[in-house]
């Protein structure tokens, strides 16, 4: 077997591309969960973002409009979840599942006219001189703008949660919603905002899949990435920078198994395709096994509805 075709620099570039949708969806979900809401509809919001982003990009012939369209689509569909869970106090697990089922159907319905079309190309941010550097140029200075945006977003979320007053209030809603309410904060509105942010991030991630990763529209194209993003939040122990670690690790596994399939290794392709999902399970087990640490990190009010009785 010829392993020389596995160019490490090219693989890392591919890895970052594969990791970015997971990273975007996971950092959004992290903020949602920090506010005390468990939204299991990430997969549904992503697929909606994938289709609305695709429609926007081809309609306006602009990849940037596509990204915007994906974020708006994800945020809009997340509002159904926000309204039901925050104002009609519905069960978050069931409503999140409903959002995923509904999103998969709606996306297929909206996208049926867009099968087989190629979207406009996403430009790369090339920096004069720097992008031509050997290795470093390819690794750091030749990506598309979304990759830089996703990393900046993680930094911004870290700053917001740990260094800003608003972030402190959001975390208070997640740790003890009664206390946050009695201090005069509107828990439901704050959570609604967090849910919309999560929807926009997931939608952006979905648009990245349909505009850059694949790039075309096919039904069910997110293939469980949204669910993996949910697992990444647990893996990251609700810490933003660890989301990068988790997402890039998964990007690495995805690219590795794809490269092995391309090499025609003797393991069958179907078995290799299972690996990202199996690794997700293994990671979940490792991170959850230490019950004390897991319960220390998880927001105390995660998944609990709040209704102010007066």
């Amino acid at each position, binding site marked *: 077997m010829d392993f020389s075709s596995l160019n490490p620099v090219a693989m890392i570039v591919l890895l970052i591309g594969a990791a970015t949708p997971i990273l975007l969806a996971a950092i959004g979900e992290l903020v949602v969960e920090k506010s005390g809401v468990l939204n*299991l509809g990430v997969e549904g919001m992503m697929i909606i973002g994938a289709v609305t982003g695709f429609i926007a990009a081809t309609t306006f012939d602009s990849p940037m409009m596509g990204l915007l369209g994906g974020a708006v689509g994800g945020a809009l569909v997340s509002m*159904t979840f926000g*309204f*039901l869970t925050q104002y*009609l*106090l*519905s*069960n978050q*697990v*069931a*409503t999140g*599942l*409903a*959002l995923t*089922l*509904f*999103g*998969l*159907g*709606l*996306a*297929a*319905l909206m996208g*049926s006219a867009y099968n087989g079309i190629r979207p406009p190309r996403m430009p790369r941010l090339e920096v004069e001189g720097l992008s031509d550097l050997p290795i470093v140029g390819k690794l750091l200075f030749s990506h598309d703008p979304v990759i830089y945006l996703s990393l900046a977003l993680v930094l911004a979320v870290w700053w917001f949660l740990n260094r800003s007053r608003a972030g402190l209030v959001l975390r208070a809603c997640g740790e003890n919603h009664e206390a946050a309410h009695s201090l005069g904060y509107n828990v439901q509105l704050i959570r609604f905002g967090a849910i919309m942010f999560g929807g926009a991030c997931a939608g952006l991630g979905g648009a990245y899949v349909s505009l850059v990763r694949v790039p075309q529209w096919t*039904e069910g194209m997110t*293939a*469980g990435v949204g*669910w*993996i993003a*949910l*697992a990444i939040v*647990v893996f990251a122990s609700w810490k933003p920078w660890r989301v990068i670690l988790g997402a890039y690790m998964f990007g690495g596994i995805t690219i590795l198994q794809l490269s092995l399939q391309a090499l025609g290794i003797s393991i*069958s392709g*179907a*078995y290799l*395709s*299972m690996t990202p*999902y*199996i690794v*997700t*399970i293994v990671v*979940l*087990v490792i991170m*959850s*096994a230490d*019950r004390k640490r*897991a319960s220390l990190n998880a927001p105390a009010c995660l998944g609990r509805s709040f*209704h102010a*009785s007066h």
Partner: protein
Amino acid sequence: MFRLEQRPQPSKTMLYLTPVIAVLATMIVGAALFALLGIDPGSAIYLLFIDPFVDSYNLSQLFVKASPLILIAMGLSLGFRAGVWNIGAEGQFIVGAIAGGAVGLALWGTEGWWILPLMAIAAALGGGLWAMIPAVLKIKFNANEILVSLMLVYVAENFLAQMVQGVLRAPDGMGFPESRNLGRNDATSLPDVFPALGIDAGGVVMLVLLALAFFLLQKHALGFQIKLTGESSRAARFSGVKPGIIIAVCLGISGAAAGLAGLFELTGAAGKLTIDFPVGYGFTAIIVAFLGRLNPVGILLAGVVLAGTYIGGENAQFQLQLPAAAVTVFQGMMLFFLLGFEILINYRIKRLRRAV
């Protein structure tokens, strides 16, 4: 403005009325959606919600589609009652079909009444064991059963793809990735029991299991413990209920039921294993379980309603060029409405008077 006021007692009327309201609301909003898509709303709603229940051919198909949904939903409802969220029924459905199908294919050419029951046992074991993976990981390592069971759906789909290209591929199938047709082989095809009603042996087994589930929940101590765990896990623990056992029982039963449903689908409606064998019953069954209020009788009715939307959807595809995905949108919408209207069970909507 309006505000919500907690009822002193949950309303029994609303408990039973909300699924009906949810279906009606879906019909109304759905009609608007059809109008947007340029399809005549009246005939579309008729095809989706009424025609499946009045046309005699459709009626015979209704139970064929409803059986797997009801069987899976029955299993899931036990877990949902206890707060054990198995959402990987689709994977258990696939593994059950592979396990049962493998037994049938291994015994190819043999005749005997015992073959089908043996396949059913293998399918229930296969689905049940597949569901025990999230159960064990939850009990031993506290891993979230929602994510683990869902990840296993993707693993099962890939496993199915491997099997139909590999050991289970039909030897005389000219290399197509599909198994031999178990549905056209006397020893392995599901016999019809009441052909006019579309009830085959799988449907009969489903009805028996549904009755057992009803008994379990109403009369048996285990059913009480399941309900207690869901209402208050602390109270359950104080009264000596072992949470691990509840998790294992709920996931085990729901996995076995989904596995059986997979086998009935394989030996009945589908006939053979292909990559396209799973059609999402495992996910739709989640909607059936909730729409049926996690109650065996309700699940029976909800399964028939959802099966109707499948059949109506297929007819509407031919007659009105309705996109296939519209049915999924409808089903998702129904669950949204149900979850939203559920607030009427515990809360009253009060009009706020303005201060004078």
